[in-house]
């Protein structure tokens, strides 16, 4: 005997509004698909500009996500667990890139780390190393806009962790670092992974800070979003093709990771 399923009708106001909400996201995709030159797609996607941009985008976004993880988790811990003067201000500054226009962020990075920047100038004088208009410039711009997503996610998780388990670990002789490594981190792992995916996704789509801080040099700093923007001016078909590549890569990663990483045990 098969189990009977109870089918419940969704209330119509929720159904109508929810469907409209979904349409906001689905319609642009349809628009993109209708303008796609399907016959020339392969040729367009395999062009040097697109391949260079794709490689660069993947590399810099993954690197930015990794750096966000390395620095963002400890930062989230400090914000969640250590009371220090000005903590609220620091938290506000850390989350600022989430609301700031990325162009402003890019400009600020330039003033700090550029050739004439407060930190950039002494570094350039001493080593000759220049961050802007390099691959590392792209990574820094990406970290700047992406890390807040990881910090916010992880800090929220840290605040929700039941401190009693950490206390129990302390009574067993574990130092604070050991407690963090062996108890806290495994407990917040689902949120860390979710934050990592969010940060990576944000880095992949980053445009404004990158173009301001790192410029738009093909093969060096021209990521996929930048390539789309340039192509829109010159060759609309290429722009559509690149957009499709971005959609495909993002969708594939999100679908894959949501099932495996992001579920928190629930079916998402």
């Amino acid at each position, binding site marked *: 005997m098969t189990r009977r399923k109870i089918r419940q009708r969704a209330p119509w106001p929720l159904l109508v509004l929810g469907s409209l909400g979904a349409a906001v996201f689905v319609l642009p995709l349809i628009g993109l698909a209708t303008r796609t030159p399907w016959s020339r797609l392969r040729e367009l996607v395999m062009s040097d500009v697109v391949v260079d941009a794709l490689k660069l985008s993947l590399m810099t976004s993954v690197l930015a996500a990794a750096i966000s993880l390395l620095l963002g988790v400890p930062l989230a811990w400090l914000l969640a667990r250590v009371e220090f003067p000005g903590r609220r201000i620091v938290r506000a500054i850390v989350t600022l890139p989430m609301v700031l226009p990325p162009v402003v962020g890019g400009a600020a990075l330039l003033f700090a780390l550029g050739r004439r920047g407060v930190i950039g100038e002494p570094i350039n004088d001493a080593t000759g190393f220049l961050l802007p208009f390099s691959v590392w410039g792209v990574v820094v711009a990406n970290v700047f806009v992406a890390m807040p997503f990881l910090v916010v996610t992880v800090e929220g998780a840290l605040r929700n962790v039941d401190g009693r388990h950490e206390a129990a670990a302390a*009574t*067993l*002789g574990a130092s604070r670092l050991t407690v963090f490594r062996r108890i806290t981190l*495994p*407990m917040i792992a689902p949120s860390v992974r979710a934050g990592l995916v969010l940060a990576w996704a944000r880095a992949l789509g980053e445009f404004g800070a990158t173009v301001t801080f790192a410029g738009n040099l093909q093969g060096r700093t021209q990521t996929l979003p930048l390539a789309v923007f340039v192509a829109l001016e010159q060759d609309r078909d290429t722009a559509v093709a690149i957009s499709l590549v971005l959609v495909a890569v993002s969708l594939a990663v999100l679908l894959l990771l949501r099932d495996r990483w992001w579920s928190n045990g629930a079916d998402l």
Partner: protein
Amino acid sequence: MNGLDAHLVVQLAGGFYLDVAFSIAPGETLALLGPNGAGKSTAVDVLAGLTPLDDGHVVLNNRVLDAPADDVFVVAEQRRIGVVFQDYLLFDHLSVLENVMFGPLALGERKPQAKAMANELLERLDMQGLSSRTPPQLSGGQAQRVALARALATQPDLLLLDEALAALDVTTRGTLRRVLAQHLSDFSGPRLLITHDPTDAFLLADRIAIVEDGSLSQVGSAEDIRRRPATPYVAALAGTNLLVGTNRAGFLTLDHHGHDLQTADTSIDGPVLITVHPTAIALHRKQPSGSPRNTWQTRVVSVEPLGDTTRITLGDPLPLGVDITPGATAALNLHEGAAVWASVKATEITVTPAAVNVKSGRN
């Protein structure tokens, strides 16, 4: 002095203070017994080093762990106090073996040694077959033993058990109390049992300290507390009469007293703990009609007025406490040495499975 010397003064939420002083000798079990909200869990936190004292001191084996007046505070990870928490707080992402290995590893033990220690402890607690499971796969009783093994693995100077049996259902409590009694006696340091359950305190502890509204209202042996309750609360707490005996299809043979009883509970055969609530015992001047088995003649040993009730202590053959109203005391003309008949219904005598070797004969 070796052992624990504690004077705990902490400001509690709601404006009152926890202010209790006690000491525990090595090999001694002290029970801190009190109602929920009396400040017992705060006592756990300050002893373990999770909350600082406001005043007083904690000294363990001559080592000062907390003394606000001298500005001394030793952090939890350096206290060497093994805690079995109320909800065990096992690490769900680690296996049973890894949970027990956690302490030794954190204290700098090498992996093979930590593993050997953990295995030995788990074996001693009859848990060796479960070492690769994770905590969510354990029953309450198994989780309790893992928590105990984890605490003992650090070779602590003090063992602290916070409501160690509270999370278990009634049927497993009796069995686990016996297991716990045995493992407590294996630990040679001072042992502190925090509980709201008089049965746990009376059966597992050598001495009982009763906390009421943040302060100790009485400290003494189970005998002291039962015989001379200092406050009405203690009287009510200690009121439950506990006897040890054997159940055979409802017929109870008592270990220490020459009188048998009959219970309506025939579900458990063998060694049992027998509880009779003081209000369940009726007193009469003349022999009452009814079951002859649960009716006996005795003498009044003491009469203590305790506010709304009067605590009558009966002598041989069954030294039981009886609570009756002052009016009934007067009507029956009860005084020390008075001859009375006592009776109790078979349905009022409850039994739980008992160990053969628990501390017994407290009545």
